[in-house]
């Protein structure tokens, strides 16, 4: 092993421990299920050969009763609530499980005469429904498509076929679309606003160029949350902008808690990421090429379309990809400035990870975000290529 590789080893180790491993472990939860199988091992095994159409047979009910009795005894011994945890997981699939499973576990503790099936059905008619058993089978792990399908507003029924969830329960596809749309809007706005200033910086010389560049870089020195908070101060109902509008007899306008505020603040925050690659692209442009094109008879708009634009395309692409990918993962700004209909994917990841403690779904949504980003980068690579301009 050579020396530079050895010198980077501490960094690689640091990244592995603090970055790759935790994120990998978290994302792993999106495609696995580990809560139900330890509680109901025999039930899961008994359901392997079940057809998923009718209520399962006596064997499955017997396995369920045996599993619940063991789990309850174990929970009491260790003080760990494995049954509530499994119930929470099943509840995410089929509402009602949060009460049904602990209640059934409590009731089957008493000794049962005759058919386990009849006894359990006497506890709750829910157990007659194939979908109740389907939820257990889906959560049996170890690998599971449940969260992944849920993140796409799909679910698998007891018989195994995949279909879209009812419209009133579908959320995430709309959220993904919204996230993509907001990111696209922000990217387009950054490109339109960043182009002229980047051109000015690239063509200016000496002090003006330095000052302009410093003005663009300035936001980098202020924390993202502070900048977002500043926008809150400006845009709120009693804020600076409304006060100024009030002085001329307009408003007050609802400037915050809407899409406008989210896009405005995101453009402000992400603009430098567009300007810097554009400046580099414009500076790298040989000024003789537009001149040559003009001398060969091309009108200014044609020079732009056929020479300037194609040669700047790698820079434009880099800026757009940089802004778009960062916008796609935005969390704080929409959370603070947006309304309920302006929240992006990251907000839902946060919600399921911290508030509803559905780590599987949070992980699946993260995978979706990651896939969207990966797709964009791949698309960019396909269209523009990762090579330098001019290189064949």
């Amino acid at each position: 092993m050579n020396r530079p590789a050895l010198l980077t080893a501490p960094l690689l180790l640091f990244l592995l421990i603090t970055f790759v491993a935790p994120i990998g472990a978290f994302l792993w939860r999106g495609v696995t299920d580990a809560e139900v199988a330890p509680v109901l091992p025999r039930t899961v095994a008994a359901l392997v050969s079940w057809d998923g159409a009718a209520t399962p047979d006596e064997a499955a009910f017997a396995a369920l009763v045996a599993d619940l009795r063991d789990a309850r005894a174990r929970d009491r011994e260790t003080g760990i609530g494995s049954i509530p945890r499994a119930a929470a997981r099943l509840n995410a699939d089929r509402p009602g499980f949060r009460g049904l499973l602990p209640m059934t576990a409590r009731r089957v503790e008493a000794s049962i005469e005759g058919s386990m099936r009849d006894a359990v059905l006497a506890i709750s008619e829910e157990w007659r429904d194939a979908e109740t058993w389907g939820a257990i089978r889906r959560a049996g792990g170890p690998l599971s498509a449940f969260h992944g399908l849920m993140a796409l507003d799909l679910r698998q029924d007891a018989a195994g076929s995949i279909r879209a969830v009812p419209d009133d329960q579908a959320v995430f596809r709309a959220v993904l679309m919204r996230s993509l749309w907001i990111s696209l809007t922000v990217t387009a706005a950054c490109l339109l606003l960043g182009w002229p200033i980047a051109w000015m910086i690239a063509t200016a010389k000496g002090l003006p160029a330095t000052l302009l560049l410093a003005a663009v870089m300035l936001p980098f020195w202020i924390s993202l949350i502070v900048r977002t908070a500043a926008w809150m101060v400006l845009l709120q109902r009693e804020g600076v902008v409304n006060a100024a509008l009030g002085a001329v007899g307009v408003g007050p306008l609802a400037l915050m808690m809407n899409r406008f505020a989210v896009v405005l603040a995101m453009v402000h925050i992400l603009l430098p990421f567009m300007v810097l690659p554009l400046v580099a692209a414009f500076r790298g442009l040989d000024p003789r090429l537009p001149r040559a094109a003009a001398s060969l008879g091309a009108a200014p708009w044609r020079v732009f379309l056929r020479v300037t634009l194609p040669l700047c395309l790698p820079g434009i692409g880099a800026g757009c990809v940089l802004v778009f990918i960062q916008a796609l993962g935005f969390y704080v700004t929409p959370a603070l400035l947006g309304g309920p209909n302006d929240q992006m994917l990251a907000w839902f990841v946060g919600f399921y990870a911290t508030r509803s403690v559905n780590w599987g779904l949070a992980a699946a949504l993260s995978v979706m975000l990651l896939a969207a980003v990966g797709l964009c980068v791949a698309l960019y690579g396909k269209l523009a290529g990762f090579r330098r301009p001019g290189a064949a």
Partner: protein
Amino acid sequence: MTDTLVRFEGVRKTYGTGGAAAVVGLDLDIARGELMTLLGPSGSGKTTTLMMLAGFEMPSAGRILLEGRDIAHTAPHRRGIGVVFQSYALFPHMTVAENVGFPLSVRGVGRADRDARVAKALAMVRLDGYADRRPLQLSGGQQQRVALARALVFEPPIVLLDEPLGALDKALREEMQLEIRHIHQRLGVTMMYVTHDQAEALTLSDRIAVFEGGRIRQVADPKRLYDRPADAFVAGFVGENNLLPGMIEARDGEDCTVRLRCGPVVEAQAVDCGGVGQSCLVAIRPERIAVAGVTASDLGEGALPATLQEAIFLGDYVRLRLSVGDGGDILVKRPAGIGALPEPGGPAAIAWPEGAAFAFSDAV
């Protein structure tokens, strides 16, 4: 009178307000079909002149006429002038064929016609098999040919070449000079060529305009420029020359007698020098001076005694440096292998034919 294609009339170019003038009062005619070279040191205004004709610089005053039409304020893309830039300025994102076809496609020439004309232009610069390459896959000389083909393919009335061979090595440069000359002769297209290399200018040109300090010093064909320079700057800039300071002792029309600062008195043809008592520069071409290893009186009347300082053998000729009188330094070139050289430090004499020495004003 020849058919004038381009005419500069009193053209001035100053940068900024009250800034230094890049071009001062330029008057120049370029005839249809000729190859006119603008020759001068850097900063002499030759490139500014080319840029004004191409349309990338606006003259501060004066008119530029192309076929009798004032184009001084026409946008570059409406002038229809071909330009070959210093380092080619090929479009790196287009193939060779697309580069050459560019001026045709912006003029709306149909694909079939365009392809035929591109193929013809590439054949003309001997790049037949290279249509699908990218410019960066070509050598410098090949890129230069593509740039030339691109500037010629739309049949402009005039092609401007801005130091096109500056980036090439010497052998390739000489090859390309001949190639440009042959293309010019074959197509009969008018060309304006900018260079600081006087040998290149002599090789290529029908006529040469020598620039210095934003002014034209002389416009003449290569032979006349070399043999009859109009002033001391041209005499020194075009080809090698001995420029010896002196004082005019007598003047009779075109003939004058000059006492050189190093001592001897010589006869010279007065070109732009003043009268008796004025200082001047006497120019004598190194190849016109004869050297012999004898005393001056043996060589004959008008010969000057000299001492050989050093002789440098350059294969086809020998460069001799001799001292004359008190601190006079004279360079002589003579073909190698002809006659015996004088001994260094020994007696020597130099002489030149009548009419080989010219007297110029030394005011620059």
